[in-house]
């Protein structure tokens, strides 16, 4: 397990950057790929290795970075919401409501979407927790973060291998 310490640390960092208010506004689609790249770089530095990184290793490191970012990020988000009873869903609700009202769709569909959002908002504001919201952020986080982690790991390994000029398979 020790050899996967760098993806876990970088994933933790990326998870925090995705969640913490203010810092969150600087986050973008490059954070997770960069975290995966950094995990490979840290691993190379720790092992004082200049050998070519196998792509299978890059995939595993990217996967672990993404998984840890998703798990830590979701856990922090759930915890912060539980304590503060505030989050982006609550803040963005009026805007979201206006937006959905403006779409050219049937009133039934609008009602269904708004009912779900109302339920989530009510639960978050009153209990600081919502099963739908928790399930949604966990599943979304796991899928998106792992895919971005793997893509970042592959590109990162490619860049590091090019730099080391020993990338022949």
């Amino acid at each position: 397990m020790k050899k996967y310490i760098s993806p876990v640390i970088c994933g933790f960092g990326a998870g925090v950057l995705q969640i913490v208010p203010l810092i969150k506004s600087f986050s973008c689609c490059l954070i997770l790929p960069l975290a995966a790249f950094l995990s490979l770089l840290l691993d190379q530095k720790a092992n004082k290795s200049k050998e070519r990184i196998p792509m299978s290793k890059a995939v595993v490191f990217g996967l672990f970075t993404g998984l840890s970012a998703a798990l830590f990020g979701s856990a922090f988000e759930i915890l912060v919401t539980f304590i503060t009873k505030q989050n982006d869903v609550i803040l963005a609700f009026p805007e979201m409501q206006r937006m959905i009202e403006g779409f050219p769709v049937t009133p039934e569909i609008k009602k269904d979407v708004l009912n779900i959002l109302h339920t989530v908002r009510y639960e978050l504001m009153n209990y600081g927790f919502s099963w739908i919201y928790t399930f949604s952020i966990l599943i979304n986080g796991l899928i998106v973060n792992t895919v971005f982690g793997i893509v970042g790991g592959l590109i990162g390994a490619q860049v590091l291998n090019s730099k080391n000029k020993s990338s022949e398979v």
Partner: protein
Amino acid sequence: MPLWIRLLIVFTLLFWVAGIFLEWIIPLVPNSVLALPILQNAYSHVCHQQSHKLLGESVYHSLVCARCSGIYLGFFLVSIISLIWKLPSEPRVKYFLFAMLPMVADVFLYSIGIYSYSKILALFTGLLLGSTGFLYFYSALNKLFQEIKQKKK
């Protein structure tokens, strides 16, 4: 790389890019509005989604900022090219750094107030990085398949 893998990449990216522009799709497929809150949450993991940086002006907006939209569009466009054109197997690292330069410069210059945020500039600098980034992703994926083949032997 087998054609079916390349097609899979193109279709995955097509769905991802279509999701970004979901608000424009809603009038054509009204039931897709049900996916809006879920997709908004999904894209929030990879973009700050600041309203003044989103593409679109009136009712419809992209679900990620102009720069991220550019990166994904770049990835998607070059993935289509990969279906008909042989991409370089070993792209040089300096191309990646050159492609990143305009984006870094744009972020730096508007951050220090030399000019105000431009969606067009953000889109194009993202597009440049995304399209170059795909070359590295594609090359790495090729090598991954070679490794798997070698292990099987």
